[in-house]
C-alpha cells in the first residue's frame, strides 16, 4: 500500500519534470532572437523555474518520508468519462437531452437515488438551468436534435 503511495507521488513529480522540460525545450525554439527582451525570455524563465522546482519536488519525494495519498474514488473516473462523453455528444444531441442524461446518470450513480427519481431531478435541474442561462442570460446552448427555437416561437405565440 505504502509502496503504491510513494510511486504515485514520485510518478507525478516525474511527469511534471518531463512536462516542464518539454516546454522548456520548445521555449528555446520560439524565436531566433537571442536577446534578453525577446518573446522567448519569460517562457524560458518560467519553464526553467518549473524544471528546477519539479526536480526538487521529485528529489524530496524520493528522500523524505511517505505522505499518505487517498485512494481515488470510482466516482471520479465516472465523472471524467461522463464529461468526455457529454462534450463529444453535446453538439450532436443538444444541451437538453445530453444534460438530462448527464445529470440523471451522475445523480443515480453518486447519490444512489432510484433511477426514476434521479431522472426526475435531472429534468428539473436541466429545465431550471435552461431557463436561467438560455432564456434569462441569453447564453447560446447547442440545440442538437430538439428544435428549440421553433418550440420557443410556438410557446411565445400561444401567449400573444
Amino acid at each position, binding site marked *: 500500500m505504502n509502496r503504491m503511495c510513494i510511486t504515485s507521488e514520485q510518478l*507525478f513529480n516525474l511527469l511534471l519534470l518531463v512536462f516542464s522540460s518539454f516546454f522548456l525545450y520548445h521555449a528555446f525554439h520560439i*524565436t531566433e532572437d537571442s536577446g534578453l527582451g525577446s518573446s522567448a525570455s519569460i517562457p524560458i524563465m518560467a519553464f526553467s523555474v518549473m524544471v528546477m*522546482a519539479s526536480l526538487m519536488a521529485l528529489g524530496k519525494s524520493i528522500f523524505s518520508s511517505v505522505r499518505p495519498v487517498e485512494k481515488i474514488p470510482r466516482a*471520479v473516473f465516472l465523472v471524467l468519462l461522463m464529461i468526455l462523453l457529454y*462534450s463529444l455528444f453535446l453538439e450532436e444531441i443538444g444541451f437538453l437531452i445530453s444534460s438530462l442524461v448527464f*445529470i440523471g446518470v451522475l445523480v443515480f450513480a453518486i447519490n444512489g437515488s432510484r433511477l426514476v427519481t434521479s431522472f426526475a431531478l435531472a429534468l428539473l435541474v436541466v429545465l431550471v438551468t435552461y431557463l436561467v442561462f438560455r432564456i434569462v442570460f441569453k*447564453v447560446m446552448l447547442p440545440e442538437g436534435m430538439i428544435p428549440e427555437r421553433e418550440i420557443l416561437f410556438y410557446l411565445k405565440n400561444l401567449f400573444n
Partner: protein
Amino acid sequence: MYMLNAWVSLDYVLLTALGTLLGIYVGAIPGLSVTMAVSILISFTFSWDINNALCLMIGIYMGGVYGGSRTAILLNIPGAPAAIVTALDGYPLAKKGLAGQAIGLSTIMSVIGGFVGIAVLAVAAPAVSDFALLFQPRDYLLLGIMGITLVGALSGRSLIKGIFAGALGIGIGTVGLDPLTAEERFTFGYVELWSGISPVVVMIGLFGLTEALVQLHNLDKAMIKQKVDKIVPKLGDIKKYLPLSIQSSFIGVVIGALPGTGGEIASLMAYDHARRVTKKPEVPFGEGAKEGLIAAESSNNAAVGGAFIPMLTLGIPGDAVTAVFIGALFIHGVNPGPLLIETRPDMFWFIVGTLLLANVFLLIFGLTGIKVFSKIIQCPKGILIPIIFLLSIVGAYSIHNSVSDIWWMLAFGVMGYFMRRHGYPLSPIILGVILSHLMDENWRRAILVERNDLGAFWANLFSSPLSLTLLFIIVFVALSSTPFWRILKQKISRK
C-alpha cells in the same frame, strides 16, 4: 457622486442583492467556493454591461466570505477557508443551543468589518494609486514576482510546489501570439491557440471542476441539525464587542491588502489578537467565546475591502477571487492599475458603492431566512456536485460556443485534481496566468530601457529604494518558507 451610480439604478441594486444572497448560499455550502462561483459566472456575463457584471460578482464575493460562517457555526464545517477560525468558537456556541445568537452576532460583526474595509479602500486606494505612478517597469515585474511568491508560500505546505504552480501559470499565460512581435508561443501550429488559452477556462477547470472532483472524496459526511432562534443580537452585546470588532477589522484590512493573504490569515491573526487582549473571557477561547467569533468574522469581511486595494491600484490581485475579478475587468476592457482611479474614477467609485450596497444586503439577508437556509444546506452532495459539473461545462462552452473549451476545462480540471492530491496549491496558477502579461511586458520594457544589459538592470535595481524593498520582501518571503529559516530562528533563540 460616482458612488451613487451603484444605488440609483434598480438593475444594479437588484443584481447586487441577488449576488449577495447567492454568495451567502455559495459560501455556506461546503464544496462550493466563492472563487468557483465567480469563475463560473464570469463566462455568463461576457455580453453584459460591465457594471451589471460587477454588481453580481461583488455581491457574491461579499456574501460568500460571510456565508462560510453559517455552516462553520451550524455544522462545524467551514463553508470557506476564511471561516475556519469561526468554527472554533461558533460551533461550541451552537452546541450550547446558542446557534441563533452566534449567527446574529457574526452577521453584525461581519457588516462592521465590511464597512471598515470599504472605508479604508476608499481612503487609501487613491493615495496608493498616486504612489504607484512612480513605479518603473522593473518594479511591476518585482510586484508580480512578489505576489506569486507570497501566494506560493502561503497557500500550500511547500514553497517549491507553490513556486512551480506560479511558474506554470505564467507559462500558460504566454501561450498564443506574442503581443509585441506576433511570434507564435507554444501554439504547435494550431491557429485556435493564437489567441491563447482563456483564463476563464483555466479558472473554471481549476476552481470548478477540481473542487467538485475533490468533493467526491467526502460524499458520506452527515449533516447535523441545530436549533436556531433569537437571531437579532442585543444592543448591549454589540456595544460591548464593538471595540474588539473594529480592532479586528483593521487587522483584516491590512492583511487583506497584502497580495497572497486573505480572509483566512486575517481571521487567524485577529483571533490571536483577541486572545491576547481579552483578559477574562466569559467562556474560554475554543469553547464558545464570543470574542473569538467576533474577531474572526470582523476581520475576514474587512479583508475583502483590503483585497481590492492592490487589485485596483497596482493591478496585482490579492487572492484567487480578486485574480478572477481582474480577468473579468480585462474582458470588459478595463485595465486595473495606477491609472484606473485617474482615468476611470467612475469605475473605482462604482466598485466602492457596490461594496457598500452589498454590505447593507449582507445585514438584511444575514438576519433573515435562516430556517430556509438550514434546510437548503442539507442538500446531499450527490445531487449538488453533478449540478456543479453541469454549470462548469455550460460556463466553459459559453465562452466561445466551442466544445474545445470544455476539453481545455477538463484538462485543467484533471491536472488541478492531481496537483491537489500531491500537495500543489492551485491559487498561484491562476495568479500566474493573470500576471503573466504584466510580467512579460514589464520585463521586456525594463530590459530594453537598459539596452539588454543585465548588469545595468541589476545596478539600477539596487540603486532604487523601492525596487530594493520589493526585492527584499521577495527574498524574505522565499527564505522564510525554507528549513534554513527555521534553523536560523532556533539558533537565534538559543543565544
